[in-house]
């Protein structure tokens, strides 16, 4: 494991989005002594299999799994991640938005969530990149949204049961918890990322994987 390296792992099917995403990554401040790598996976049959392939291909300790339509606005992003991981060795994963608890229906956006992503209203003020001056104040959560998931330890993604494009994020959050790791979402004065997913999402397979998730993790969900 190279503990001085960050690796961005992105499943992609759209060069246009990927190129724009990479522009923002290329403009991040890199902590002194560190390097970054970028692994893009084309033609993945599922998010989990793509991420497993990326994970196996990199020796970087810090891996950032992200969507191609996520644009990292905060230039101190990598420095902040490092500070949060270093402030508590039990933290295994960091997300941008997440839920401290899930309901038994396992629908993340129907429960309280911490964190934020850029909205239209956020653009009314000039954007300022921020150093996370209190990494210990991050919110501990149960699950995070898959738009961006940063890890400091490798745990295989459940491609055995999540063979599509939904619930890989909640599943991986549960896998980290099963291995004894905490998952956190940082306090963000301004959102660190923008997610260009559009308001309306394609959820045709969502319910299928929601049921698989509930079945696999039923002991860890409320009754």
């Amino acid at each position, binding site marked *: 494991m190279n503990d001085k390296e960050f690796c961005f792992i992105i499943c992609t099917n759209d060069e*246009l*989005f990927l190129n*724009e995403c990479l*522009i*923002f990554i290329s*403009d991040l401040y890199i902590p002194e002594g560190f390097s970054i790598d970028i692994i893009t996976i084309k033609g993945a049959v599922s998010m989990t299999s793509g991420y497993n392939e990326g994970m196996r291909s990199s020796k970087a300790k810090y891996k950032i799994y992200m969507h191609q339509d996520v*644009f990292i*606005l905060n*230039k101190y992003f990598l420095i902040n991640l490092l500070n949060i991981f270093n402030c508590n060795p039990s933290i295994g994963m960091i997300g941008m938005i997440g839920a401290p608890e899930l*309901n038994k*229906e396992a*629908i993340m956006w*129907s429960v309280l969530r911490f964190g934020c992503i*850029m*909205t*239209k209203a*956020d*653009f*009314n003020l*000039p*954007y300022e*990149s921020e150093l996370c001056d209190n990494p210990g104040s991050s919110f501990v959560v149960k699950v995070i949204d898959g738009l961006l998931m940063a890890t400091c330890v490798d745990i295989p993604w459940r491609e055995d049961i999540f063979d599509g494009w939904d619930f890989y994020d909640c599943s991986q959050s549960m896998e980290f918890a099963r291995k004894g790791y905490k998952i956190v979402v940082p306090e963000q004065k301004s959102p660190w990322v*923008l997610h*260009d*997913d*559009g*308001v*309306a*999402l*394609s*959820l*045709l*397979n*969502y*319910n*299928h994987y*929601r049921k698989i998730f509930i079945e696999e993790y039923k002991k860890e969900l409320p009754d």
Partner: protein
Amino acid sequence: MVELQKILELYEHMEKNKQRYLDTIEKYMNKFDQSIASHDLKSFNNIFIEIANTSTTKETKRIFNSYSSFFRLESIKNALNNENTEKINLFWNDVNGVKELLKKYNITIFMIRRLSCNLPDLYKKEAHTYLRSISPYIVNSIINDLTVKAGNENYIYFALATDCIESNNYRNAFIYLSFLKNKTDEVKSLMSTLAKTLNSESNKPVHPEI
């Protein structure tokens, strides 16, 4: 709790009727594709009229509201109709189908967004160059598109108006300034000057107080 129940019912319905949802999406995307390929604005508009029609099923309307590409096509429609009214180049003139049109829309979103983001000059210059080639109406549509987070709208309009003035495109400068909310006296005065310049240059008067 009631809302969650409704959401669950919706998800169940989507799962059970997935193929029908996909068939409907494909049906409408094919219609869009044909009208875009032939640059037939009337038939493009008619697709939206058909969807809004009360005889269209609730399910079809729900599908339309759950697929962000449809929102974006509607946003493009608004721009095209404005461009057509003003008899200027239509946004879709150089595309041959729905995929290309949405790709061009996405490129435009990225370029607009770069204006507000703190990126190196190289990328901002690229954005300014690109945005000179499209109409203010598509920029306005993108800013008003609920599915898009483009940037600070007044900043964008002002930056593009300035760009247009510097390249002597006073008509577009005027249009961008007309989109500004809470216009200052300076902006109104500038618009008045632009209007006078345009009115003296062409037979198509521009009303100074938009």
